[in-house]
């Protein structure tokens, strides 16, 4: 069995208010400790904002700037430029946003920052909906998933943000999962060493939002990766695709069955998702082959 080998340097504190078992907090722990002390985070409204803050307390031991929902990437750009102006060239600026602040409301700012190739590391904690405000759908919510605003299941597919970002030809884009901690840490480490715009999208199974058991978010994320629903890969310069796992080894049912947001699904509904995943997987492999 593969051992996890990242080092915890105490950059994330106990006592934060994430739900018990939340893998967004877990991912934050891995990312903060991998990036290290010389960093500033910019956080738009999101679960992360709540987890980091709660005035007068803070759970993170680096400075965090809370900004508005639509301006995460823009604020991060400004913070980075201000640091540069002060001669702090090596300080990593992290923008940590949810999928609402990335796929939907923050997309304009993100696209602009990507187009300018700002030197920031943008982390999207993708829990596929507005889970902090009661679980409404976002454009990241996948096909057939039930949310507060799509109680019968969403009838359109998840927006493919990777392809949007790839079209900007930024230096580094990656997907990551809290089930694959070594991979997540390695990607953060790699991104830290790249100048320019870096985006890492982390799959975050949301306990209340997805209807996942308190102890099962890591397992759910693992099933997401192994079933090919959420493949782990990297895109460099928008064109070079690299897979980080050995292929998909499970049917999507192994992933869906752990989540109440899919419990209304009939066999046909599962088959539709399987078919979508198979086609996306094939398309991804074609890109890997070309790269």
């Amino acid at each position, binding site marked *: 069995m593969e051992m996890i080998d990242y080092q*915890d340097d105490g950059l994330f504190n106990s006592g934060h208010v994430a739900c018990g078992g939340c893998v967004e907090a877990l991912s934050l722990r891995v990312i903060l400790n991998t990036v290290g002390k010389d960093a500033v985070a910019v956080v738009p409204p999101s679960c992360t904002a709540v987890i980091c803050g709660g005035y007068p307390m803070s759970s993170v031991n680096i400075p965090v700037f809370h900004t508005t929902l639509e301006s995460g990437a823009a604020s991060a750009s400004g913070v980075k430029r201000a640091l540069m102006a002060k001669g702090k060239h090596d300080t990593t600026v992290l923008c940590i946003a949810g999928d609402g602040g990335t796929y939907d409301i923050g997309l304009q700012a993100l696209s602009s920052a990507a187009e300018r190739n700002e030197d920031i590391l943008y982390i999207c904690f993708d829990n596929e909906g507005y889970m902090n405000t009661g679980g409404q759908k976002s454009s990241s919510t996948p096909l057939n998933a039930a949310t507060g605003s799509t109680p019968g299941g969403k009838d359109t597919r998840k927006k493919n943000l990777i392809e949007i970002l790839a079209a900007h030809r930024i230096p580094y884009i990656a997907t990551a999962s809290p089930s694959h901690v070594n991979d997540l840490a390695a990607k953060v480490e790699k991104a830290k060493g790249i100048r320019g715009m870096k985006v890492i999208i982390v799959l975050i199974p949301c306990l209340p939002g997805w209807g996942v058991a308190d102890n099962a978010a890591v397992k759910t994320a693992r099933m997401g990766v192994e079933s090919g629903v959420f493949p782990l890969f990297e895109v460099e310069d928008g064109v070079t695709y690299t897979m980080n796992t050995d292929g998909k080894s499970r049917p999507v049912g192994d992933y869906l069955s752990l989540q109440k947001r899919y419990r209304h699904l009939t066999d046909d509904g599962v088959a539709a998702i399987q078919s979508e995943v198979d086609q996306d997987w094939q398309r991804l492999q074609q890109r890997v082959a070309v790269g």
Partner: protein
Amino acid sequence: MSSQPSPLWTHTPSSVRMTGTWRSASPDYRTLPSPCLGACPVDGRIAVWVRQVKEKDYRGAWLTLADNNPFPAIAGRICHHPCESACNRQYLDETVGICSLERFVGDMALAEGWAFDKPDTERSESVAVIGGGPAGLSAAYQLRRRGYQVSLYESKDQLGGLLRYGIPAYRLEKAILDGEIQRILDLGVDVHLNAEVGDADALKALHDKHDAVYLATGASRSKALPGLDYSQPWVMDSADFLAATNAGEECTLGKRIVVIGGGSAAMDVARTARRLGREVTVLSLEPEDQLPAQRVEVDEAMEEDVTFVTGAMMQSAGANGDGLVLNCIKVNFQAGEKRGVFTIDPIDGSEFTLSADAVIPSIGQDADITRWQGVVADDGPVVGTGSDWQTATPGVFAGGDLASMDRFVTQAIGMGKQAAVEIARYIGSGEDRDTFPELTIVPYKAISSDYYPDVARHVPANTDVAGRLENFNEVQQRLEHTDALAEAERCFSCGTCIFCDNCYLYCPDMAITKLENGYEVKSDYCKGCGLCVAECPTGSVMMYEEG
């Protein structure tokens, strides 16, 4: 009112907030017994030594094995391995090949000449061990390790008991047996061969001379098959047959042999006879799927062209020309609640005959307990003892086949160990019993099986069937080194922490502290989510309701 306004930024770490109050259940590290340990007749710490094999600490693995059993090379060959039947890995793919790993370690210990450490302190008290079979040798070993003086009395001219006289060399090579016995004797045992303790007076004399006595003379009297005339030259008792052939004596029985019985000894007789060029039929009361022998023994016997006639009994035997005719009938066999207890119901009209030249009944053995009348209770099939293996006479203990109907070599080894502990307690060592009170055995669902990809069991090759019948060389072979390592990797280490740090690293609340030799839950912060438990690959941490 303060003249200083509060700053705009946060200034207090969140760790002042005690999120532990959210919790309704708490993870706890408890070393729970693995299913293999629960099933092991010698209480072997299997999960521990297999992990030592994984880490290539072979000597450490051997020492762990030898804590409970001085015969890993022997047990690795012939144990009925209930550990494997209990193994949690069977619910993922196949059980771990524990027995073949044990043999791997045991053989390495012999090849490397590893010896047992002499006891730290020698004690003056002495114990007489009567019977040099697995139970007696195990007790002698455990007593010597504790510093007691041991005198071992064996009625035959060599030690080993059933291991030497009952188990054929193709299952247990004599050099292995000799090697593992010698290692015990090297601890300093006063051995008396050809020393029968034939009556109560002889036993009393030994009891007077020593501080305690351990009786382990086994079950050496063959059960008699009703209606069979044992005085006929074509009848030979199975124990006599095995003792003679194991000693290399020539077999004078005719060409066609019928072995009556379906247990391990019957398989040993049948396969030995095949190696002596005989045609062999096994006739058993039990249907094939209920034969008391281990399945692998039956399979290997079938490979060696032993014919099985199951679910039938012999009613009479008589001369027929140069040979014999056995009159048999099919029966309905109904197993009872206990091993060895059953009912049979002959099926009318199902009579048939078998032709043969000789019959070897192999239907089990009884203990000879009447010779010590007045010292031990002799009303049962075995010597009566308390749970401390002490007989009616204080200071006289008994074990192995003499005192139990659990007729397996490793059961006897385990009983020898337990008796040694009890004898030490009787003499006054203050030693504690080795017990696992009220502990739940780690269930499969406690294992995070996602960490274990499907890997087929590594099975050592058997020798070719064709070559087997030409000699008594061992049939089952040793695992190759690389296969042994790969097989050890398959072990879940149930209930045995492997210090992988998963619990520590997967905690979203930093509520686990790493200690030098384990982990501790910070109850101030643990929210009780159970992620550490879900991601523990060994089931070493579990959730418990608090209070």
